[in-house]
């Protein structure tokens, strides 16, 4: 962070990890995959946004949310509402009894657009809402819970309940939300057809760009004092409180941050997949998101990206051949991760691959360590010297997982 030139940072070990991810996502995958498969990778990446948020919220600050699907879904629905309105011009819907409103509203005997749909005619409002609506809900939940010191398992259960409530609400209010089918048949974004191969490729790159933006924000937060307080709060909440910090405010902040990431991911999901439905936001989807984060390594924002990619790729591969076995495989995976390697892939990488890297880059290592400021305690992939940092956190987590 304090290095004299931002370019130098890319030559540090941490910088190289980011470069490697960028090469993979920007060069290798687009070259290797056809547009259909690339679009699938784009879809997996939208979950990585949620996983990064969970690293900050759960991994760092210790707030386990089992309802991130809610924020993902709200972001996705905001985008879907805009696209649906654009697709429902009076000309395109001339055969409906009320032309100019979304088709599912017409089927449900609605004769005018509900008030909360009106603002979604505006693209700039939609962009604001994609982040604003999830953050607002996260703020309300966070304020209600954290100022009352609700935490741990209780908080997890409440977020889970909220995911269930939102799903039931959306399915029940078919005329306003599209019900169980969701909002489908989305066509254009400001007149640009999002269904073509070319558009899908562009959307993939937009998604990758936004992902790096989120990684940057998450990295900024974790490397500042703010990030250290989040980690400190996780293990010694009272000490943080009696060091003069309003713990609830910090928890609300990180929960809102995770919600914002999830909202952006959800909006991109809608664009990339072309529809939004309640099945992506419910309890199962929300728990899957926690698994992406856990598998990738809940302390590593980069690990979260790989976790989201790998679990989703495995899911697609698996469900193509044995659809009914996937939930069991997923459950086994989660139990396996929790029992065998609680810090996920990033933890494994740190234990087994990093020592090898140390050997290879021995000559450069001394110089690099010097260049690294001491303030990076909350590193996603700390240097070997910092490995002890992680052990106490494993301990402090274990009760939460049971």
């Amino acid at each position, binding site marked *: 962070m304090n290095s004299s030139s931002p370019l130098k940072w890319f030559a540090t070990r941490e910088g190289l990890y980011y470069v490697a991810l960028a090469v993979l996502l920007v060069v290798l995958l687009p070259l290797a995959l056809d547009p259909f498969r690339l679009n699938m990778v784009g879809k997996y990446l939208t979950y990585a946004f949620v996983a990064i948020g969970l690293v900050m919220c759960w991994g760092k600050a210790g707030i386990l949310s089992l309802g991130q699907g809610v924020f993902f879904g709200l972001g996705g629905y905001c985008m879907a509402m805009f696209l649906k309105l654009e697709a429902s011009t009076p000309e395109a819907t001339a055969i409906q009894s009320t032309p100019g409103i979304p088709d599912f509203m017409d089927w449900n005997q609605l004769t005018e657009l509900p008030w909360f749909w009106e603002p979604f005619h505006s693209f700039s409002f939609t962009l604001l809402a994609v982040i604003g609506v999830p953050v607002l809900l996260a703020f309300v939940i966070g304020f209600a819970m954290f100022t009352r010191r609700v935490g741990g398992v209780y908080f997890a259960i409440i977020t889970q309940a909220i995911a269930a409530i939102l799903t039931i609400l959306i399915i029940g209010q078919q005329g306003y939300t599209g019900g169980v089918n969701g909002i489908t048949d989305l066509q254009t974004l400001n007149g640009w057809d999002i269904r073509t191969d070319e558009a899908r490729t562009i959307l993939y790159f937009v998604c990758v760009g936004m992902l790096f933006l989120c990684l940057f924000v998450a990295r900024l937060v974790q490397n500042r*004092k703010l990030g250290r307080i989040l*980690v400190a709060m996780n293990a010694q909440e009272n*000490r943080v409180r*009696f060091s003069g910090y309003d713990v609830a405010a910090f928890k609300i902040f990180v929960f809102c941050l995770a919600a914002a990431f999830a909202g952006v991911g959800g909006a991109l999901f809608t664009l990339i997949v072309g529809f939004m439905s309640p099945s992506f936001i419910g309890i199962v989807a929300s728990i899957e998101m926690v698994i992406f984060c856990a598998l990738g390594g809940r302390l590593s924002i980069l690990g979260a990206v790989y976790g989201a990619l790998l679990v989703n790729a495995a899911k697609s591969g698996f469900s193509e051949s044995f659809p009914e076995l996937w939930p069991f495989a997923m459950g086994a995976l989660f139990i396996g991760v929790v029992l065998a390697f609680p810090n996920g892939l990033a933890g494994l990488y740190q234990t087994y691959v990093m020592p090898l890297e140390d050997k290879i880059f021995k000559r450069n290592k001394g110089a690099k360590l010097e260049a690294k400021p*001491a303030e990076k305690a909350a590193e996603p992939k700390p240097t070997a010297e*910092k490995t002890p940092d992680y052990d106490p956190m494993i301990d402090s987590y274990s009760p939460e997982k049971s």
Partner: protein
Amino acid sequence: MNAAKSKSGDFLLAVEGLTVSFDGFKAVDDLSFYLDPKEIRVIIGPNGAGKTTVLDLICGKTKATSGSIKFDGKELTKLKEHQIVHSGVGRKFQTPSVFEDLTVFENLEVSYPKGHSVMGALGFKRDAEVIQAVEEVAETIFLTEALNEPAASLSHGQKQWLEIGMLLIQKPDLLMLDEPVAGMSVTERKKTAELLRVITRDHTVLVIEHDMQFVGDIADRVTVMHQGKVLSEGSIEHVKSDPKVIEVYLGH
């Protein structure tokens, strides 16, 4: 109210009629005591006397059922924990509670009284002033050599010192220490007594301690608590010779 105000005017801390009951059990019962500025006061008493609860009440961890705690003219019972810290009260817990995942430097830095809001913590810069403050405190608490070690690698005694250091860097007017030498070796005890002497040059200190020799070493005045009430108060000689104190605390 006026009487109390005039009475508490000269004191740094004035605790009056403080009561807290947990499901009808009065852990602290109509307790009153006063601390002068720069005083070292030690609270002693048998287990369950309510000593730790008194510290919990002052720092806001526990809310009082009734009574008042006036600190520097401010009523603490109405404030939240972090506001109490900001008004100048530092609290050390009985078991060392430091941030094990962070280095000694970072532990002290996090405790530095700047950037306490979310945005403040995001914009916080490690400037020369912060580094200087951290190094000064590290020297006071004998941890200069360990600044870059993770706190998890410190010994029990060093963790206790670190936590004291984390309070010192906040520059509080009142320091509350809950059994600072419990579990320490003889050498560590001596060093801690030395440390407390340095600290008390410019802080008011409220200590809970069992080690009577240590108490005699450091205390200006001693308050003996029993069943949530003050049993005796005065110099160490005075309380040591008080028959009531011998009966419930020292006698066995």
